[in-house]
């Protein structure tokens, strides 16, 4: 079975976020990057499938040179191969453009199952995975916390509000967008990291995929114009002083609530 995992490299969750000079994104120089946490759960779910039987796991990511490190991490965790779409024309492509690129890779690979994280922690968009499924004509399910594979289908549990779960059966080929907390993500072992150095990372451009005229940023229908720190409301009373002073003020307020 050919399993493809789409992953995105995003700023580290503790990275300092400063808006860049022209206000169009954050400053990316001098910050650490990591695999989007939702995608780590997706990689893990794919690797469990591989552990259980006969699956080849191919991880795919789109982005500049720094993305190689994210792909090597996934290879270190146990993925078999990686594909890196590294093309300046794809920089700043919107969700649909990225989805077209991932769908083209999935077609070339003959993917039976595509995993992705539910959303990226930078844009929080949760846009791309269902788009990829639509472009391929695959059924899809998002926010998945559990997968159960049989020969021709996958039964998944989708997270709904309030802790409820929706059980859906998807015939293969299909796409599954994994929710955070679906599993416990494995660390890349030292042996895995060493082996990863020898695993293939195929680098492609949009032209290689026949997408130079259809999936580059030039075709964007959606544009992020400005990014900024939101104006703060001033409804919160911010307490200041020493720990004892602050704690004293808190105790007073708790008394006023009638709770002490």
């Amino acid at each position: 079975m050919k399993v493809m995992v789409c992953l995105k490299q995003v700023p580290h969750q503790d990275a300092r976020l400063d808006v860049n000079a022209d206000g169009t994104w954050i400053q990316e120089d001098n910050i650490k990057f990591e695999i989007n946490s939702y995608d780590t759960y997706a990689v893990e779910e794919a690797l469990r499938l591989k552990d259980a039987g006969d699956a080849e796991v191919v991880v795919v990511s789109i982005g500049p040179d720094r993305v190689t490190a994210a792909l090597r991490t996934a290879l270190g965790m146990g993925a078999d191969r990686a594909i890196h779409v590294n093309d300046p024309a794809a920089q700043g492509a919107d969700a649909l453009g990225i989805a077209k690129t991932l769908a083209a890779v999935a077609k070339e690979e003959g993917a039976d199952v595509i995993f992705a994280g539910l959303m990226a922690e930078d844009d929080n968009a949760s846009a791309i995975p269902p788009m990829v499924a639509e472009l391929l004509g695959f059924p899809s399910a998002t926010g998945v916390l559990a997968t159960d594979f049989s020969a021709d289908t996958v039964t998944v549990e989708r997270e709904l509000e309030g802790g409820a779960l929706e059980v859906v059966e998807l015939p293969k080929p299909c796409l599954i967008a994994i929710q955070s907390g679906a599993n416990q993500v494995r660390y890349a072992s030292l042996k895995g990291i060493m082996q990863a150095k020898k695993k293939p990372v195929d680098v492609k451009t949009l032209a290689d995929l026949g997408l130079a005229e259809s999936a580059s940023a030039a075709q964007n229908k959606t544009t992020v114009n400005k990014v900024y720190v939101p104006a703060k409301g001033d409804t919160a009373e911010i307490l200041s002083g020493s720990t004892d002073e602050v704690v004293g003020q808190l105790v007073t307020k708790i008394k006023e609530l009638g709770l002490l």
Partner: protein
Amino acid sequence: MGTILVVAEIQKGAIREASYELVAAARGIEGAEVNGLVIGSGVGDLASEFASKGAGKTLVVDDPAAANYNVDVWSKAIKAAAEASGADLILISNTPTGWDVAPRIAAGLDCAFVSDAIRVAGGDGGYNLVRRIFNGKLDAEVSTSGQTVVSMQPGAGTTYEGSSDGGTETLSADLSAIAKFVEIKIAASTGVDLTKADVIVSGGRGVGDPEKFPEIIQPLADALGGAMGASRPVVDAGWLDHPYQVGSSGQIVAPKLYIAAGISGAIQHLVGMKASNFIVAVNKDPDAPIFEVADVGVVADLFDIVPALTEAVKAAKG
């Protein structure tokens, strides 16, 4: 401006509030004609209600195949409605249904897509939207060109309170599906019912490791006669079980006092606790979104504040 198609979502036999937030957003766009869409089985009355409470002329896809949410059924129904109404803008709520189907609609129509928008307005040949990124730390202004699908963040806007005199119109569509609905599983109750607590003390990722929950967070909850809660990352990491989770996919709470320690305030968490009577937030990061809903904020290390507060509360109780 053309037609705006507002897609309703039904929850527990009623059209949910978030759908009326979409109506308000649509009616806020100058010069647009608003149409509604209701999908389900036996939903004629709900469709009439939607049509009279702001959605305008409402298309109804009423079919046993639509009795339960199904991504293929909804995808086909919405595309058929978009075509029938000539909609230039399609609005849906960013709920588990919305984030499941809305991107597929946009890809199927080969059009612009913006998710989790908090504001929408007409733009130059398209639409202008505002949405939050980096888990609520930054805002982004986005513009689209041409036909656009937008999912809107539930709770971000007001609900429409007026009326409209649209009627309903049955829409037939091929609703054949590849995906198959099996069942809904409701979470079994486990005895951790945070909705009954007068006081909740919740810890987030800032608490740092699982041992600190029984060591630091639980004692404050106990001193105040309340319950301990957690944000999603804590549960994802396996530090506490799901019943402790406060948020859109956990418990929605509104206690007399909610203390959030080391919680940044991502929207999924805020949805779960912002209705609390009094909110105290303790976080080292002065820009944490949690301070936007707090009544009182303390920008400090929770390991300094929380144990000291626990001792002070015990002393006050005598």
